[in-house]
């Protein structure tokens, strides 16, 4: 996808759109395919952002390396949360993920120094833009960020595509829809969910590093707030969880609503976009529980069939 936007504001909005499409695609691996409802993915964003930032500020490690380290750290944490909770009923998993993410945020807000690592508590960390360049993951313009997040999104969608067509994907779908039936077929439901959680938390964490390098300033409220976790889940649920197109469609529809309502009504009608989100979410859940991608996919299939028919008739 070539860059067609010139204005810096629109480019910023576009980057955020892609970032949320990426986050939601990563969430979808566990929230969509595994049929559970994680509501604490901001924890992984935070782990990613803090790991790469601390490593680069204090030890001069390239954020690219920090990104991968943060990814593995998040994977470890994700598996640790999933291990006891995947055996419980759905609501418990949702509550445990919320509690974990909020607990982690509160801890980071209270810790100035974690052993040798400076976290700076609620004040957060600022990344001084001293060395620009690809190796330092820091650029004067927004364009490089756009291409990086686009590449990350393509990668995440690719991974989702591969997973959804692999044995893991089928096991996940079976375990999500009918856990008892899947178990009786010899699928270790808790284990496949753990694998999905591991991939998902790894990918989500990478977005944290991207966010830190894009804004050059992180603090617990900006990278680990409950709002991030909920917005990711909302986008996936409205777009259609468990499908590849759903998260992309959801981000495409919802992100502009939130950005433009913040730009135009931010001072007069605060919170308007969240009222809209909530309303749309309820309507979608009541009338189109598989998300907005379903009717669109049906429309697309019908159009393709008609087109194929027209071609046959000459």
């Amino acid at each position, binding site marked *: 996808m070539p860059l067609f936007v010139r204005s810096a504001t629109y480019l910023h909005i576009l980057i955020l759109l892609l970032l949320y499409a990426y986050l939601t695609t990563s969430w979808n691996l566990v929230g969509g395919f595994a049929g559970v*409802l994680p509501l604490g993915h901001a924890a992984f964003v935070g782990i990613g952002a803090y790991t790469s930032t601390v490593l680069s500020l204090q030890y001069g490690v390239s954020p690219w390396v920090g990104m991968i380290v943060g990814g593995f750290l998040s994977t470890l944490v994700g598996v640790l949360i999933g291990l*006891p*909770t995947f055996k*419980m*009923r*759905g*609501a*418990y998993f*949702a*509550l*445990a993920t*919320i*509690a*974990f993410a*909020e*607990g982690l945020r*509160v*801890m980071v*807000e*209270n810790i100035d120094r974690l052993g040798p690592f400076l976290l700076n508590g609620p004040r957060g960390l600022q990344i001084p833009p001293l060395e620009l360049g690809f190796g330092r993951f820091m650029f004067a313009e927004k364009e490089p960020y756009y291409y990086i997040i686009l590449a990350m999104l393509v990668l995440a969608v690719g991974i989702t595509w591969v997973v959804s067509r692999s044995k893991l994907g089928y096991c996940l779908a079976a375990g999500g829809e009918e856990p008892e039936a899947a178990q009786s077929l010899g699928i270790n439901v808790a284990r496949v969910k753990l694998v999905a959680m591991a991939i998902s938390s790894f990918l989500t964490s990478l977005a944290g590093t991207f966010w830190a390098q894009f804004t050059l300033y992180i603090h617990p409220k900006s990278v680990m707030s*409950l709002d991030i976790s*909920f917005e990711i*889940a*909302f986008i996936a*649920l409205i777009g259609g969880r468990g499908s590849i197109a759903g998260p992309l469609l959801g981000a495409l529809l919802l992100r502009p609503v939130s950005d433009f309502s913040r730009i135009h009504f931010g001072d007069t*009608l*605060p*919170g*308007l976009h*969240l*009222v809209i*989100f*909530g*309303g749309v*979410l*309820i309507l979608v*859940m*009541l009338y189109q*529980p598989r998300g907005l991608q379903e009717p669109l996919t049906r429309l697309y299939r019908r159009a393709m069939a008609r087109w194929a028919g027209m071609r046959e008739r000459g």
Partner: protein
Amino acid sequence: MIYLLEDAINGILMGSIYGLAALGLTLIFGVLKVINFAHGSLLMVGMYAAYWAVLLTGAHPYLALVIVLPLMFAFGYLLQAVVIQPIFKAEREVREPITVIIVTTGVWYILDNLALLVFGPQYRNIQDNPLRGKMIEAGEMLISVPKLWGFCAALVTAALVWLFLQKTRMGRAVRATSLDRDAASLQGINPYRIYNIAFGLGTAVAGVAGVALVPFYNVFPTVGVLFDIKCFIIVVLGGLGSIGGALLGGMIIGVIESVGPQFMTATWTEAIVYGLFLGFLFLRPSGLFGVKYDW
């Protein structure tokens, strides 16, 4: 030492109000088997209702209950009948439809942000009310009067709810539905009506908590979020669906919050509460008084 005791007593009093807020949540869970994520927002609605009732009529803060209680019951009843019921009907064979969590989260976002749109972000409190900042001296200790009344309200409400469930015909129908929806409907009970009533009741209890809080607590659009997560923690701690567990869980949280700052930075107590919650989730998910079968 005397300060520690004073903090512990005030913690128990405040904690019982948390327990009162969580009582509605545990009641709804006990019957519908779903977690109402909008519960904190319902509490927020109750607090605004109490606030405006007191401000406009100039009556004693606790008299607001006359208006708030039926209002909140009707609100909860309608919310369940209009928004949540269709999901139960669509997913008839699912015992705990997770979709309800999602829909109630939508309700949470709508209510909180509507409150922000309508009332603005400012913190409101009733300036001239007879209970504000009132203390009684017991020896060298100071005990907050509105919190003491809140404690009484929590005990009375819990007792009334328990009596309703155990002693009335309707209460028996509610318990039957909570045990087995299909078997109850075979006995001629309309489970959806029971769900409406249970939801209305839970919301009304949140209204009682709102009335108890308004004389000494600030009202603002996101006040619900503060209580939402606290309520989740309390009900898991006490055991989902248990009335006594909700009160006890609330008191535990209240004591940690008020005694903790004697030993550490106040903000750390919040981290301890989350840690306790996760510990319970992992080691004893049925909570203090929960039924093992449910989890």
